[in-house]
């Protein structure tokens, strides 16, 4: 079955070091192994630059208050959020998600870099609380 599938693939030739070539020859199914290794490597993109090679640390996507249906931000909350955005930039975070707290005023937040959650916590009044992740 696999040998039939080989005819559907494109041949690619590349040079490798001698020791690696010896190891590859010992493998029972070289094509499947190399293809799997390449797909795995290509699928691993840097969470900071998203595979672009350029970090966009200046841009932290903060939740839009209207879209997220968040309550208006008062002066104290704005000052807290401003500091949090500054921290997000220093941590090269890519996203700052905000959500309204259910039973008390203020916001819950989570700070992300790609898929990784860097920090969680809450903003309430004139204080910011961080929770261990």
């Amino acid at each position, binding site marked *: 079955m696999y040998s039939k599938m080989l005819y559907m693939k494109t041949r690619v030739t590349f040079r490798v070091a001698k020791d690696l070539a010896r190891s590859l020859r010992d493998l029972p199914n070289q094509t499947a192994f190399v293809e799997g290794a390449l797909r795995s490597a290509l699928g691993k993109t840097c969470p900071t630059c998203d595979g672009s090679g350029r970090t966009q640390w200046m841009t932290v996507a903060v939740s*839009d*208050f*209207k879209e997220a249906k*968040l309550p*208006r931000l008062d002066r104290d909350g*704005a000052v807290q*959020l401003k500091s949090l955005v500054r921290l997000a930039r220093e941590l090269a975070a890519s996203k700052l998600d905000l959500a309204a707290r259910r039973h008390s005023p203020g916001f819950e937040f989570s700070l992300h870099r790609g898929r990784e959650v860097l920090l969680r916590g809450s903003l309430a009044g004139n204080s910011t609380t961080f929770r261990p992740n």
Partner: protein
Amino acid sequence: MAYVITRLCRDCVDTSCVSVCPEPECIVEHRPLEGVSALPNQLFINPDQCICCSACQPECPWEAIFDEDEVPAAFAADITLNAISGMRPEEFVQAGIHTKPAPSADEVEANKRRWQT
């Protein structure tokens, strides 16, 4: 939908809004790379950066900031003017904070009458 700084800010340019805005590149001034600014002397909100938190609105002593949905008809053109900062961000810089004396209620009303006619 973002917030909009209307012409009520022109030549007043109070930066109280900048001091509370959580987004560093949201409230900006026009500083073209070459020549003098052809835009009015006021602050602008970059709609691509605005997170609609509304913190800036009550801070403006000239009452110049509106939700885009609530901009008075007389100032509707200012929505486009603010949008320029999103279309040509390279011409705009983060607004600095300059302390100014707060205007009196009479001055605020006089400024509104000046622009609403």
